[in-house]
């Protein structure tokens, strides 16, 4: 099963890097250096960003689900992605920031704000209804605030410009932009991965974890901070992309035999594969204007989300 996952990841990476094949072939015929240029300067940042963002969504989604003890917690449903988008919009269109690393920081601050608000509103181990309603309210408010910030932005083109990336776009990102998003995201995600065993133990409840010498409060704060940094940095570069952070951990836990912390690694692989597939779909659509990647993930993710809610309801009723 893990082998299959790695094989899929390898195929996805190769496909994402090499497809469409014709331009590469033509450039190769013209001038081999041009082909290398396309591959390294144009395609590689996009591939790295797609794989990294997908992995970050898987890891932070699994960590948030473990922490909230709820399979419906995720970067998008908790409002973290929306908060990150708000942060990046305010930073980019109001504060006039252009430095990618500063924008990543704005995204992280926005995500942190919404996650902190969620914990304040719903509590750390809230029941599903409270968590969903609070997360939804926060996401809606952050979305409205983002629209307002764009409508009132000094630049009249802010709205059109933001449409281009806010719901997920990986086109034309430079290597340095990719690095600005991925380096902080990778560090934060690695710090999350180090907490896998601790998150596995919180499956027994916070009291048992505390009796084993862990500090559940501090662990929760760390999970929130690291998730916010990793998601926020990615959102500031490539926009808010939904459902991958919700779905990847669900499949990840099938591979970790239900353990919520150990699910982070398989969820990372699955998230990377899903996002690479979604971006390939977007790229394959022959249109002269961009389709946001978030639209594709939402189209495929919504049925899975509904299925999750239905199976959860059945389990509660049983």
């Amino acid at each position: 099963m893990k082998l299959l996952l790695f094989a899929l990841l390898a195929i996805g990476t190769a496909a994402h890097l090499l497809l469409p094949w014709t331009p590469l072939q033509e450039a190769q015929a013209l001038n081999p250096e041009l082909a290398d240029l396309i591959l390294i300067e144009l395609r590689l940042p996009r591939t790295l960003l797609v794989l990294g963002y997908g992995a970050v969504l898987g890891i932070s989604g699994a960590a948030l689900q473990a922490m909230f003890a709820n399979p419906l917690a995720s970067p998008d449903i908790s409002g973290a992605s929306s908060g990150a988008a708000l942060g990046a919009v305010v930073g980019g269109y109001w504060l006039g920031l252009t430095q990618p690393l500063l924008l990543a920081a704005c995204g992280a601050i926005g995500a942190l704000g919404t996650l902190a608000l969620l914990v304040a509103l719903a509590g750390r181990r809230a029941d599903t209804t409270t968590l969903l309603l609070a997360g939804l309210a926060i996401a809606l408010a952050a979305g409205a605030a983002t629209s307002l910030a764009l409508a009132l932005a000094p630049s009249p083109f802010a709205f059109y410009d933001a449409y281009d990336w806010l719901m997920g776009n990986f086109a034309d990102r430079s290597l340095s932009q990719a690095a600005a998003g991925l380096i902080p995201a990778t560090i934060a995600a690695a710090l999350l991965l180090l907490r896998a065993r601790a998150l596995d133990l919180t499956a027994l409840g916070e009291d048992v974890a505390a009796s084993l010498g862990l500090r559940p409060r501090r662990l929760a704060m760390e999970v929130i901070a690291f998730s916010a940094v990793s998601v926020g940095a990615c959102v500031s570069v490539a926009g808010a992309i939904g459902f991958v952070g919700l779905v990847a951990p669900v499949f990840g836990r099938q591979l970790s035999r239900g353990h919520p912390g150990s699910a982070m690694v398989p969820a990372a692989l699955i998230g990377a594969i899903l996002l690479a597939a979604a971006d390939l779909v977007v790229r394959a659509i022959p249109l002269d204007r961009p389709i946001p990647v978030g639209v594709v993930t939402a189209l495929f993710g919504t049925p899975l989300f509904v299925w999750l809610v239905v199976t959860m309801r059945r389990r509660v009723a049983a």
Partner: protein
Amino acid sequence: MTSLVARGVGIDRRLQPTDLDVQGGELVALVGPNGGGKTSLLRALARIEAASGVVAIGGEDVDLTPLARRRHLLSFLPASRDVTWPISARDVIALGLDRPDAARIDELIAKFELEKLSDRPVNRLSTGERARVLAARALVGDPKILLLDEPLSNLDPYWVLRFLVIFETAAQSGQAVLVALHDLSLLSHFSRALLIAEGKVQMDETPASLMASERFEEIFRIKAARGGWVISPLAGPRSSP
């Protein structure tokens, strides 16, 4: 002989600072009215929240013990049986160990007769079955002190008696076992009983003398009659603190 020495353990507003000594081999029952502080005492001894005071087990201060060592000193079983994740019963028991030890896990699976359930996700088991799995998790690491909050609720009569035998065996092997419970008819199985009410250990005696005393009747508002229990004539509406 290992022992539990607690000095001034308390939790704000729920448990007044309490001193307690328990020797290895003792089987201690914690009884008392709802909300009296049984759970708080167990949680304070397990150092769960910002509990004041000091707990030493076999001379080691629990707060200063490194993580890996701590599970050899104590284990705590909460009253809640909720598990969110579909982890197999065998894997849940394994969470009580530092490193996987299939032989030891099999031993616990046999002890709690979980052979048929061991591969099923624990969140799909009945509450009583889950109670057995979670108790096995608490016992698997063989700690010096077992702190068990209402381990006998949700169990069928056979399993209540089986659990008591398991606790007695643990005590005989030198572990100290503290059990919060409500069923007073089971007190005769214990070597010592603490009556906890209003955030305080009110009595600390053998079960027989505890149940015979007038304070017991006063605090519990029940008395022994015709081989069962009736509401005590002393009972009035309790003034809340």
